[in-house]
């Protein structure tokens, strides 16, 4: 398959792993954070830890939009859908995320009208098809998905579709990285930069990390070879004492970003002064809200939202895992009280959550595996 097979080619992967082994100084430990949850999943799914030298430690970052959402926001979204005229529409990712009284899927089983959509425009179509109902789209995501929400709001306005609103939970990636760098317990040598977010924002917004924080960053794709090449770039910079932004994912990420996407975001959204992140607390200017021109489609304007803050269960260490301070398996609840079937935190169910990745692909491997080789 084009654009996939080339990046999973065993000979190339082996050669790149050899290069990594040559570059990695055996006398030192490398701590590399992959910011994006998509990378975390790829690393476990493709078993990349098996091929990397043991002194390269990959630290999972906060780049999972479902995971960073505090439980209160999920409760808020679900509270709007208690009105029987409301259809709650969200991406599949949201469906198993626990709220105080259960996940959207559990609410659906109890009779709430909850639909999975694959894009915000599908939610808008749902509104057009159900003129006597109100469709509330639960918008999540970093800059990756924010432009499509913006376009959908512009279309709703242009077409005068009034029975549609968006509960905006879009967040931005740069303040999250800054929060991690500001965190005193974090020692990170370099970053694998998020691939999908960068298709929208480009590489320039990361330059301060290289310049003022002196950390190398390589924006990378999601195939095994992409991630390994990103690591090669970072190791070269570290060897040479450099710190710059490199773009491994040139086939998708333009250096300047996607101007059209940035334009529609600027038209529809504005920065919130602050926003609460799960486990990381309030981060200033880290999330988007719908601006006043689109207030008629803003669920936060149209509905009464309780806005209750819900603290995560005390024993859950989602915040530490999100910041990369703890590995998923080091959380007290991992695989005991918190499993993909009975999640305590969203990290265990999101397709980008590091706990889900670790549980699904690695957990039992680590505990049961001895001397596995490729069968003949």
């Amino acid at each position, binding site marked *: 398959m084009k654009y996939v097979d080339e990046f999973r080619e065993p000979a190339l992967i082996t050669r790149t792993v050899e290069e990594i082994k040559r570059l990695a100084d055996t006398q030192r430990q490398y701590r590399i954070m992959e910011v994006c949850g998509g990378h975390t999943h790829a690393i476990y799914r493709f*078993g990349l830890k098996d091929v990397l030298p043991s002194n390269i430690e990959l630290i999972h970052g906060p780049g999972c939009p479902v995971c960073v959402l505090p439980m209160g926001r999920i409760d808020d979204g679900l509270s709007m859908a208690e009105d029987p005229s409301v259809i709650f529409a969200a991406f599949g990712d949201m469906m198993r995320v626990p709220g105080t009284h259960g996940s959207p899927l559990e609410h659906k089983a109890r009779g709430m009208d909850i639909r999975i959509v*694959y894009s915000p425009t599908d939610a808008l179509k749902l509104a057009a098809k159900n003129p006597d109902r109100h469709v509330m789209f639960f918008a999540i995501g970093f800059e990756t998905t924010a432009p499509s929400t913006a376009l959908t709001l512009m279309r709703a306005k242009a077409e005068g579709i009034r029975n549609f609103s968006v509960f905006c939970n879009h967040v931005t990636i740069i303040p999250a990285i800054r929060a991690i760098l500001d965190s005193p317990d974090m020692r990170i040598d370099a970053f694998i930069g998020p691939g999908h977010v960068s298709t929208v924002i480009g590489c320039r917004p990361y330059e301060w990390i290289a310049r003022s924080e002196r950390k190398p960053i390589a924006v990378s794709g999601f195939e095994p070879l992409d991630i390994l090449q990103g690591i090669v770039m970072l190791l070269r910079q570290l060897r040479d004492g450099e710190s710059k932004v490199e773009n491994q994912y040139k086939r998708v990420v333009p250096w300047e970003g996607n101007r059209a996407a940035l334009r529609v975001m600027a038209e529809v959204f504005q920065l919130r002064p602050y926003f609460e992140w799960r486990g990381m607390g309030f981060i200033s200017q880290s999330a988007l809200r719908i601006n006043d021109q689109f207030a008629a489609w803003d669920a936060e304007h149209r509905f009464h939202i309780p806005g209750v803050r819900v603290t995560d269960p005390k024993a859950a260490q989602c915040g530490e895992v999100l910041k990369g301070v703890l590995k998923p398996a080091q959380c007290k609840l991992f695989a005991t009280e918190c499993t993909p*079937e009975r999640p305590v935190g969203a990290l265990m169910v999101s397709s980008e959550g590091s706990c889900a990745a670790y549980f699904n692909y690695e957990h039992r491997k680590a505990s*049961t*595996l001895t001397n596995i080789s490729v*069968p003949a």
Partner: protein
Amino acid sequence: MSTVTSIDQPRYKVRFRDPQIEMAHGAGGKASRRLIEGLFLPLLCEASPEPLSDAAHVRINGASIAITTDSFVVKPLRFPGGSIGELAVNGTVNDLAVSGARAEVLVTTFVLEAGLPSSVLEEEVRAMADTARQAGVTIVGGDTKVVEHGKADRMYISTCGVGSPIAGLHLSAGAVRPGDKILLSGPIGDHGITILLARGELDLEANLRSDTRSVLPLVEALASAVGGSIRWMRDPTRGGVATSLNELTRDCGLGVVLREESIPLRDEVRGACELLGLDPLHIANEGQFLAVVSPECANAALESLRATPGGHEARIIGEIRKQPAGAVLVVTSYGGSRIVDMLVGDPLPRIC
């Protein structure tokens, strides 16, 4: 009926504590297993001596028979490559086949929603008749219920099949040994992805058809070639290959190691899975089966499948190992590996 050996210590205890039934309980993965083992088995089938399989083999007045039942609630009713009527026959024929039995007779139940056009029903009844003829099974009876409009999704079909054991087959998870090879009859995921696309909720199109078919001819070819060397078979329907093999590892206490590049997969299925973030090993099939055979007979088994019409894409996809006990490990050609668990919940596409 088989005798109950220890009434005092039932194999299963009632321990199903989920507060309500959710879609996941019917998706064939972990929740389904929890429901069956935690509620149905202890109360209904306490006497069952065997691990869960696709059909029960029982003796009645000295005669061995295999019996199974399956219900079909697919939406849409018709999809590229098949329809609910075809599934209803093939599904039950296949459950019997992979338990080592040839389907002889079926009975069927229709649950119909008031307002269903008769033409739709007739189409499906005709599809059942044609499929039964092709599969060599006779439909000998049935039942009809009609529910109010809005209380069912157009129509549901349930079939119960009785079969006669295929000579020379002795299948049991307990017979599986380290070193045994795992055969797969053909490419996976066609049915599940076809249905996902046929629902029209995704703006995706692919030239793909459901793989619904009777696997009995393939099973019979395999049985006549290497009969006694077949340890275990299963048709990986809901929950896919990953769920079937995880169940095997639980039932036999051994591990499964698969070579990723050996798993047959059409580009269309692979592409859809890549786009939607699904693992093809979790996607449903309706016309494939898995067989574990002894290593000495693996090549002969493969040849027999490949020489049978519809079996040319069969592959050996991996083997049984002592480790990782109770788990399925997929190994890539460049030396990476990952555990593939049972399906949790329904497969839900991701966003980005």
